[in-house]
């Protein structure tokens, strides 16, 4: 794939105001960049959330809205003063509308190297079925 060799560019993260309620933490909130892909059995959300580990991520499903949140404690080096700033540290939040075809009880998530993966399994009816064609 040509994307392997291309130079990475910095994208200024989208700063957002959380939709559902006024924030009670004095933090900036960013909308993480995501990939969403679908396999025959699952819908997968992949989100860049640097600084987040498995303990500081929160995934909620309310009706058909799936919300991912990541909480980041600023990890500024002690006794140093900042001389140059290109990015800001904050929490992450993003919501997704989930179709009825998702098996809500078996959603799974992993975090690795600051990337969250949420696996949303499809219920059986939604899985593509292969229909055998028999010779007549």
């Amino acid at each position, binding site marked *: 794939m040509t994307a392997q060799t291309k130079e*990475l560019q910095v994208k200024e993260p989208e700063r957002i105001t959380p939709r559902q309620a006024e924030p009670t933490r004095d933090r900036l909130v960013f909308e993480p960049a995501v*990939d969403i892909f679908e396999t025959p059995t699952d819908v997968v959300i992949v989100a860049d959330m640097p600084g987040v580990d498995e303990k500081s991520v929160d995934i909620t499903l309310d009706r058909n809205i799936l919300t991912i949140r990541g909480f980041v404690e600023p990890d500024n080096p002690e006794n140093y003063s900042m001389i140059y700033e290109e990015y800001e540290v904050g929490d992450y939040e993003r919501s997704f509308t989930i179709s009825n075809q998702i098996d809500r009880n078996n959603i799974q998530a992993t975090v690795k190297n600051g990337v969250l993966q949420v696996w949303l399994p499809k219920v059986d009816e939604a899985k593509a079925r292969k229909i055998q064609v028999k010779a007549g």
Partner: protein
Amino acid sequence: MLRRPFGVFGDVSPWREMERIHRLMDRMLYDAFSLAGGRVGPVSGYPAMNVWANDEGAVITAELPGVDADDINIAVAGDTLTLSGQRKGYELNKDEKFHRRERSFGKFTRTIQLPFKVNADKVEALFKNGVLHISIPRAEADKPKKITVKGA
């Protein structure tokens, strides 16, 4: 884009906000020019970095989500530090399809010049949860000396 008026911004000062907007505009211009085929030279590279400093040295942090620690290289020479590596992508099988692709992948190289000579043997890097911390001690010979002024 502003969430609240200035003054009740917590630790976000208007100056920081101005710098952020400035950076954003630089990048937009850079993107526009590179799309048109011309090059105005990178305003800044990937990854975005924050730099802290004191008399003893500096600390650089960078957000590299989804990069493996093994794919990060740090080289120090004199007063420059080069951070390079790659963020590996992934491909889908034939029966899988993307609904949304916002994350990008590829190689990166970035060189930073520090305001002091580096003690290359003592540079340490830690990569945790997709955030890289590099601590860069200043070379002993380069550290500021305190000179006592004696009374006559």
